[in-house]
């Protein structure tokens, strides 16, 4: 990403400085007695925590609801301040205004690490209008600007775009940066196979997305209400499903073009309801039991029947599409998820994506406000999804290939970053020629970023009192013993160096000493200023478990740097079974 991120600024540019952080709360305030839906608020916690940690003075700007440019009592931000303060575990002072003398005075009195929340920015008409005066007033409150509101990035607001004319540096917050990186990874260099699941409604908005994604995708599924027009274009009997007649020619063109590049997969079966019963149910405000449903194939939906979800065969097809996929992009729900039984397919596919956390997968991006609400309403562990976006509209803009105004307004990375001085990392690798220490050497490059590191190999030999005594009598024996020792050490170094060389790792020195292994390892680690000690250690061997060796244990207890313990995998355990013995 070419935009500057807040953590790239040197810390001294943040400590003691006033940082305006724009974050987003959810659109609607909580109804009385209902827990605050804090999905967006939560996404900005790392940024706030980071600013607090570096001793910045964070002035937080939030908008809530649609007060229409005037003060609306029920949209005051006191509940937001309370939530933030509880989630961060520190006080968040909330002001009664966003601009003017009050906030200026309060900001002047801030200490390092303090957090201050301005009143709802949308109480001022200037916020949505991107008014220069309002932006200037906000700019008066800060030295650094940080935008962490991805969900608003498609808009040009005074607090996201206007303000950047008056405040520099202007950097992305951590949540915004994360969102941008996720989309960048999918759009610029998707790891193939790249599977697209484009569903939901609003065909006119999704067509440009489909056009833009087409050359990147390897597999494409079109579902939700979108699919109806595509099925119509293929002359299927889809009952009373709504079709966008005006866009039908465009859809036909798209299909013709798409089918040269990827297989376009449409739903194979649908859950359908009688259209009158469904309208009646909608009119009643969805009270009571939802209408009776039946399963139909895509090409046989009777008239007066309306598809409300895709069926099990389609879910199975999607499961097949996910096979081996390394990038998945999913936009829009597959059915009318708001009515419980008709969210089944959306839920099932969400679970497929979550299961992909293990054993192996790359990246999944789920976007769209409606899909996001659906997924969260299912009460699934959403943390397992990489990545559930907080902003539907900005995501669509990115997927169409368009820039986001609030992102364009930020500084470029190159303008800000100070070079960081580093010395090569020093790694101490004690070796004894055993399988354990070889395993450590073999795995080192995989486990640690050791590319430029300087590795010191250490071979500790045990002094033997007997040999010492004998050497005193017989100088020849001493010499012979020396030769033997040196040979042993050379052998050990040779067999250890081979796997290191294979990984193109750089061995700086090979040392042989006599003494207690743990003591010598600790002493040398100190001497060379090791950043890491790598120890091969005994693994678990079946029922007779040999726990970590005494040398490793002692090193671990006394080392002044991190210690990496590598074992030989005795057997690859799958599942939980073996752990519970």
């Amino acid at each position, binding site marked *: 990403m070419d935009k500057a991120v807040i953590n790239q600024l040197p*810390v001294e540019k943040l400590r003691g400085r006033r940082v305006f952080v724009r974050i987003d709360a959810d659109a609607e305030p909580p109804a009385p007695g209902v827990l605050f839906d804090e999905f967006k608020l939560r996404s900005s916690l790392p940024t706030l925590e*980071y600013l607090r940690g570096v001793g910045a003075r964070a002035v937080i700007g939030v908008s809530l609801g649609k007060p229409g440019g005037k003060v609306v009592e029920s949209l005051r931000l006191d509940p937001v301040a309370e939530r933030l303060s509880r989630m*961060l575990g520190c006080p968040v002072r909330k002001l009664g205004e966003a601009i003017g003398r009050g906030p200026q005075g309060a900001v002047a009195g801030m200490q390092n690490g303090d957090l201050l929340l301005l009143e709802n920015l949308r109480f001022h008409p200037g916020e949505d209008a991107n008014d220069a005066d309002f932006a200037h007033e906000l700019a008066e409150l800060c030295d650094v600007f940080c935008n962490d509101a991805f969900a608003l990035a498609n808009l040009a607001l005074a607090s996201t775009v206007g303000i950047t004319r008056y405040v520099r540096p202007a950097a992305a917050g951590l949540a915004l940066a994360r969102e941008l990186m996720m989309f960048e990874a999918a759009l610029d260099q998707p790891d193939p196979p790249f599977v697209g699941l484009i569903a939901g409604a609003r065909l006119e908005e999704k067509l440009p997305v489909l056009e833009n994604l087409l050359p990147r995708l390897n597999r494409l599924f079109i579902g939700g209400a979108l699919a109806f027009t595509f099925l119509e274009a293929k002359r299927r009997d889809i009952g009373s499903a709504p079709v966008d007649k005006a866009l039908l020619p465009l859809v036909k063109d798209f299909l013709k073009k798409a089918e040269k590049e990827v297989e376009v997969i449409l739903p194979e079966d649908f859950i359908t309801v009688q259209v009158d019963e469904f309208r009646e149910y909608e009119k009643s405000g969805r009270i009571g039991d939802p209408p009776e449903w039946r399963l139909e194939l895509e090409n046989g939906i009777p008239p007066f029947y309306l598809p409300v979800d895709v069926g099990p065969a389609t879910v199975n097809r999607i499961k097949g599409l996910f096979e081996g996929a390394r990038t998945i992009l999913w936009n829009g729900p597959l059915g009318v998820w708001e009515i419980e039984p008709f969210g089944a397919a959306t839920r099932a596919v969400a679970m497929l994506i979550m299961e992909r956390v293990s054993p192996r997968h790359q990246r999944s991006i789920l976007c769209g406000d409606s899909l996001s609400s659906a997924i969260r309403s299912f009460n699934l562990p959403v943390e397992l999804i990489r990545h559930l976006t907080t902003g539907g509209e900005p995501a669509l803009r990115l997927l169409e290939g368009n820039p986001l105004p609030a992102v364009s307004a930020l500084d470029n990375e190159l303008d800000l970053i100070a070079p960081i001085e580093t010395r090569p990392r020093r790694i101490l690798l004690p070796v004894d020629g055993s399988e354990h220490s070889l395993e450590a050497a073999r795995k080192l*490059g995989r486990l640690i970023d050791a590319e430029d590191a300087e590795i010191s190999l250490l071979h500790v030999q045990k002094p033997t009192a007997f040999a010492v005594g004998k050497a005193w009598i017989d100088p020849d024996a001493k010499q012979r013993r020396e030769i033997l020792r040196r040979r042993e050490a050379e052998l050990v170094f040779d067999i250890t160096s081979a796997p290191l060389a294979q990984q193109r790792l750089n061995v700086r020195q090979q040392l042989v000493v006599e003494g207690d292994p743990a003591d010598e390892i600790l002493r040398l680690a100190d001497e060379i200023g090791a950043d890491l000690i790598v120890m091969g250690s005994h693994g678990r061997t079946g029922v007779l478990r040999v726990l970590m060796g005494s040398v490793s244990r002692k090193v671990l207890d006394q080392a002044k740097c991190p210690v990496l313990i590598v*074992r030989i995998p005795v057997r690859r355990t799958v599942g939980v079974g073996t752990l519970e013995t």
Partner: protein
Amino acid sequence: MNATPREPLRILIPLSGADSDASALHVAAEMAPRDAEFFLLHARSGPDEERYPDFKRASEAERFECGIETERIFARANAILASRGLISAGQLVAQGDPEEIILRVANRMAAGLIVLAAGAARRVIDHAACPVLVAEPGVAVRLAKV
């Protein structure tokens, strides 16, 4: 056929909520290969959710409070990773005996490396099926840029 790309190393970082979390996070961030993925795990002590599913449903309010505590722990962890230009790939929460949960989750997600603070979770160091990187106490102060 193209060579299959190397799978990213999955690093599991168990978080207890104590200050020592910072050591593990800094060391993980410092040492990890560039393509590594960081999974945060907060293992809450309490009846094991999987062994005793009936205990799982604490009251809504209790779960909410736990949730806040967990969010705070994750937020701090993410801020530390972020201070080194990294992001976490996933956040997991489970309740039970922390050491057992760490081993269970590491196995299940096929973790390539576990990063722990010294003194924490001896059993994990002894029984983990994958390598374990142990951060010495005080390392956070040495490595932290903030």
